[in-house]
């Protein structure tokens, strides 16, 4: 034991440094999403002819179900890793990644349908052009996070398989995945459900 071991600082909140770094990232990213959603709120509130183009909730309901379920499969993966069940942990991690891919594909399908109806970043057939800009920005930012998460799940999964990463690393990635899920819980009501055509 080195001479300096007695003066080593304890980690903040008894959380290991890597996990703390993820928490700090999550807090910063919360501010990013909050800024986007607040800006969207200000614009929507101040724009009288705000479009309400969504006729069906089937796609967004399915996307919500898949993303929330993927949080559960992520938890299963971390629990399996903690219990020493390496193959179980890998299986659940890759199931989570597959759920993320399905979510992204459903999202893209929805985007393409809206683009087909004439919606772009700056104009749409229903009302103010600001709608497209805010819709694509917020859902695009979220989709980018999902895509990054899927890549990370696959990369960390393979590194966990090769023994370079352990259960702690899976848990840290799990925090990110749950965060992405949590953001979606606010995007759905604000961006989709409040813009349903009645």
């Amino acid at each position: 034991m080195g001479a300096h071991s007695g003066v080593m600082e304890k980690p903040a909140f008894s959380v290991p440094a890597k996990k703390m770094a993820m928490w700090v990232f999550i807090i910063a990213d919360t501010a990013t999403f909050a800024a986007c959603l607040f800006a969207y709120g200000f614009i929507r509130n101040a724009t009288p002819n705000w479009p309400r183009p969504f006729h069906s909730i089937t796609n967004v309901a399915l996307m919500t179900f898949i993303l929330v379920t993927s949080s559960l499969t992520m938890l299963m993966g971390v629990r399996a890793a903690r219990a020493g069940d390496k193959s179980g942990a890998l299986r659940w991690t890759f199931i989570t990644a597959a759920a993320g891919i399905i979510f992204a594909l459903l999202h893209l399908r929805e985007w393409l349908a809206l683009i087909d109806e004439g919606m772009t970043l700056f104009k749409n057939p229903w009302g103010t052009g600001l709608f497209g800009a805010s819709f694509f920005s917020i859902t695009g930012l979220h989709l980018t996070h999902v895509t990054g998460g899927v890549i990370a799940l696959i990369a960390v999964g393979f590194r966990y398989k090769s023994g370079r990463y352990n259960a702690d690393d899976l848990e840290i990635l799990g925090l990110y995945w749950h965060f992405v899920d949590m953001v979606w819980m606010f995007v759905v009501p604000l961006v989709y459900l409040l813009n349903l055509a009645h």
Partner: protein
Amino acid sequence: MTSETQSGMKKDLVVYLCILALAALQFVIAYQSIDPSQMFVRMLIVAVVEAALALLFFMHLAENRGLLWFVVIFTVFVLLAMQYGWTDSFRITSGAPWSKIG
């Protein structure tokens, strides 16, 4: 599988079902015939409860009080700091509240 792992999985499953039920509730609220501002408030309350469940149980903040307070205080401060724009956004549409002063 240890009993601790099994009880943990059971808790995860219960929280998952609660979040799904709350998500479904948001969809029900969307089809209610109520004032849009009322609808917004109700949906936001449900979303906050969903997020709290995810934070406390999926992200295990319930097990670390110190970190919980750090995250909550910092995040709430940032969210409150972002409220500044509402008065402007209301003023653009209705002239309120400033045009009514005096």
